[in-house]
């Protein structure tokens, strides 16, 4: 469903991704692990078009991105509706309530009616365990709660796949646990995900693990195989 072929990206003269290829099938949980600066987050950002790249290609559910200085904005929008993203720093919209945050995608991207969007949003908040926080402001939530809201917000547009960019790195262990529990729950439900993570417990339950170093995928395989050596 997601395929990356021979992706190469430079920051100036520095090569950040060097011919990366990978495929993600429906229902798979893919974990990207490896040292900081290895290009994991950049790869994720290239997949949903937040970054451009010089050569190679990305295809998500039939939407293709190619190398070049810009992407076609229509293709980008369609692609992004099929692949959601959860950020390390949550990036909730501070001027909206929790409920409005979760509804923002359906309302402003999918142009759904308010009633429909609200029903979905409340269900999702329930699923991440924050039903009673619907009217709160993001600033009044803990980091873990904020990240769970961010996950609900991403799921609200019903993406085929979700990209998680170090979703627990900004959280203390207790809060990280809450977030990981939600993610495991999603994975169990068959949600396609690519997760950049340093959390080995989570990576162990992934379908495939890719180890990235210096802009290249140096090893791929089942978690047991890859993680043993990585440790």
């Amino acid at each position, binding site marked *: 469903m997601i395929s990356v072929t021979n992706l190469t990206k430079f920051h100036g003269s520095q090569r950040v991704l060097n011919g990366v290829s990978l495929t993600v099938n429906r229902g798979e949980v893919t974990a990207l692990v490896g040292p900081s600066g290895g290009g994991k987050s950049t790869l994720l950002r290239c997949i949903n078009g937040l970054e451009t790249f010089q050569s190679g290609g990305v295809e998500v559910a039939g939407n293709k991105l190619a190398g070049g200085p810009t992407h076609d904005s229509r293709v980008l929008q369609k692609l*992004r509706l099929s692949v959601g993203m959860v950020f390390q720093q949550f990036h909730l919209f501070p001027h909206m309530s929790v409920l409005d945050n979760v509804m923002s995608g359906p309302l402003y991207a999918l142009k759904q009616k308010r009633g429909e969007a609200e029903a979905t949003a409340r269900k999702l908040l329930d699923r991440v365990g924050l039903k009673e926080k619907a009217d709160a402001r993001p600033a*009044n939530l803990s980091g873990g709660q904020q990240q769970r809201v961010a996950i609900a917000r991403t799921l609200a547009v019903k993406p085929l796949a979700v990209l998680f960019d170090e979703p627990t790195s900004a959280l203390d262990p207790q809060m990280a646990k809450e977030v990981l529990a939600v993610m495991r729950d999603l994975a169990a439900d068959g949600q396609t995900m690519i997760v950049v993570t340093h959390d080995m417990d989570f990576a162990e339950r992934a379908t495939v693990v890719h180890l990235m170093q210096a802009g290249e995928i140096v090893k791929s395989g089942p978690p047991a195989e890859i993680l043993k050596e990585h440790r």
Partner: protein
Amino acid sequence: MKKLPSCRRFALALLLLSLPALATAQEKKPLRWGTDPTGGAPYIYRDKTGEYTGFEFELAEYLAEKLDRKSVLVEGDWANLPQQLKKPADVENGVDIILNGYELRKDLAAKYGVTRPYYVYRLTLMASKESDTTTWDDLPGKSVGVLGGSAAHRYVKKRYGRTVDLKTNPDVANVMKLVNDRRMDATVQDSPAATYFLSEYGGLKGVGEPVQAGDLPGYYVIYYRKSDVELGKALDGALSAGLRDGTFKKIYSQKKYDLWNADQEALLPTLDKPWPPENLPAEESPWPDLIEELLLSAGMTVFLAVTSFPLAMAIGLTVALGRVYGVRLVSIPLGIYVEVIRGTPLLLQLFFLYYVIPEMLLNTERDWFIWLAKEISPLRAGILGLAINYSAYEAENYRAGLLAIPKGQMEAALALGMSRRTAIRRVVVPQAWRIVIPPVTNDFIALFKDTAACSILFVTELTRKYNELFNFNRDLVIELAFLTAGLYLAMSYPLALLARRLERRLAGGKGGHP
């Protein structure tokens, strides 16, 4: 009978030149008389040879000679001249008397010595010969020009209230011309000026009968210092003599003035009665009128501010969005716009909008442009000028606000599948708006006061009204200044309070600081 003044002067000059022994005549004590020659004919004006003439000029020459003093003309501003009597006579622009169509008024008579009248005026209504104004009762609904602060001004206001469109103007000749050219419907003027201009401008007609301005006949009198008792007596003596022996009749009857009439004949019997008459009708307090006028013009100030500022905000936001998110072809010209507008004075921009641009449009000789040029009224130019000027500052505020929003906000919105446009509208701008509310409110308060610049376009807002009232009420200068400043403060301070509240509420809403 006396010789004509100019002849007398000429003769005197000859004598002085040929007979130095007579130089003592030059040491006559001067009679410094204050007048405003811009008030014009027939009171005092320059004839074709450039020499001063006018019935009051001739009167002053007569009085000086009668008092055996040397006539010295001191020019001043009509409304300001009475104040000159508070200073000594021998300072620069000091005067002994003021003689320039000042009527007998209780407030002036209380402060200064007042002579017997030298002329009785009425108020004459004039309109264009082609106008449908044929009686005084036709005035409601018409535009009527008057000399601001004059008896005519008070009379029209009292008789017609707000049913007429009262236009005050400091220049009599200008008002006459406007009526003559049918750009104003009518004017009410003192009868001497009316008589003169009716013969001067072919397009004018007198309407109805001239009326008496108040309860008493309209007496022109001379004011002097209360302490100059002797001078007052001498002036009264000279005036009575001039009236009795026919000197005044001779001066006033000259064809160029044509001012002698039954009202002047009726002055003779009053010479035996005490003067000034007791129980002068009290002057009405000027304050109700002044306050009403100031409040109305404060309304215009508010109108200018509340119409121009939203426009400035809209233009500013558009410019800021273009600068932050636009391609270079858009952002560079917008950057230049901001710098040009910020770098030139508001006054100049207003001049440009009202004078230069219409001129340029007219020169194109294209119908549409000519139509546009004629649509630029002072009020529209004022609103647009303020809006454009402030749009540059608002653009910078918004630009700073937009740039202050973390990049992640835009990325999160895009990742949800929003278009860039929607992300800007729903996510970035609302957050930027919260950041810029304090500086924007500040700018609104600043713009509120900058509306005063529109006074140069003849928009009657608070500052222009203050200037106008100040000119006709010199003795209330300080009170008026404080009142005007107070009005500005009374309007802008609540705005400042509102700004602070908004700021606090928004900070609270953001959850950061209560």
